[in-house]
């Protein structure tokens, strides 16, 4: 997609959240079939995304903005993973991803990521998790589902610090 954007001379700023952000920058978590991202300007980039889908026989929605509605409203943190002047790609920071995952707290789906992100962020207690959450979503408190998840995670123990994926080579 980056190659095609550059070839067409289309500038784009891509901000990735969710599982793709985790896999690209923070730790290995298996293959990701789609990318949740916001992109600006969106029109030409989404056209390029459709061309990439066609070329690779992927589903059209492999590049979508469904999860960006959950991006924190008070504070965001983005880590650059690619910049060449015209095209820039950023992924959500580990603390921001942790806050987003705590907000979702889907049993069996978010717990491993929450535990791993807590290890990466050095969050060792429920109160530290609440403090981090409030930085991104001020005025909100962690829902009971998040408390239930944190109780199990802290009782079971946090995972070891994972290795960081190698830097992205997009030519």
């Amino acid at each position, binding site marked *: 997609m980056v190659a095609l954007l550059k070839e067409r001379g289309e500038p784009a700023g891509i901000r990735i959240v969710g599982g793709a952000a985790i896999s690209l920058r923070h730790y290995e978590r298996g293959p990701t079939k789609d990318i949740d991202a916001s992109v600006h300007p969106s029109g030409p980039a989404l056209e390029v995304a459709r061309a990439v889908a066609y070329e690779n026989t992927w589903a059209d*929605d492999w590049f979508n903005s469904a999860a960006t509605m959950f991006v924190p409203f008070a504070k965001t943190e983005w880590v650059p993973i690619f910049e060449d002047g015209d095209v820039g790609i950023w992924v959500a920071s580990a603390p921001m991803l942790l806050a987003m995952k705590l907000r979702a707290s889907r049993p069996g789906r978010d717990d491993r990521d929450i535990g791993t992100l807590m290890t990466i962020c050095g969050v060792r207690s429920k109160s530290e998790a609440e403090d981090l959450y409030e930085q991104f979503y001020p005025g909100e408190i962690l829902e009971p589902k998040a408390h239930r998840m944190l109780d199990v995670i802290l009782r079971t123990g946090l995972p070891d610090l994972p290795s960081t994926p190698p830097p992205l080579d997009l030519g």
Partner: protein
Amino acid sequence: MTLDLIRTARRTNKQTQKALSARSGVPASSLSLIEQGKRNPTLQTVDSLLRSTGHTLVTVRTVRESAATIAGRIERALGDSRPDLAVRHFLQLNDNLIAEHNEVRYVLGSSEPAATGVKHWDAAIAALVAYRLAEEDFPAPSWTLHPDRYLKKRWTFNDGLYVIPVDTVDVPTEFLERGVLIDAATLVSV
């Protein structure tokens, strides 16, 4: 893809490679290589092998993977001791079914997947297909109703690291009756 098709069809028909080889006339050594993805068979060979398992090729207008194909991925993830990847694949099947509608959704769920070797995953896959097809007013495919797809002892959906308790009122019927405790919120695609 070919290896998944043939291997899944053979296993759901409860045939050994030797039996399929004898019935189709494809040498056992070739069949083994085809199923391992080390040999690309001709379309004629694929057709012959599938017919010898009682299956036929159909095409459907989607590039999303079916329940049968994804069950194969789940089986391999479990074989590699990666239940976390099994969860990812399971959620991908959920997203695939949500993304398609009408006959396409039905076709993605209609072919019986081979057993994964882990009963609670077999029940979870059946429950997911029945759940998503019911949303479109389709009957559950017969394979999802097989007794092997129902657990005697309940299992809470998890990826092997943490087991988060789930309240049964939050579990969709198709999962609850098969003994798979998964929160409906876990299946919401974002």
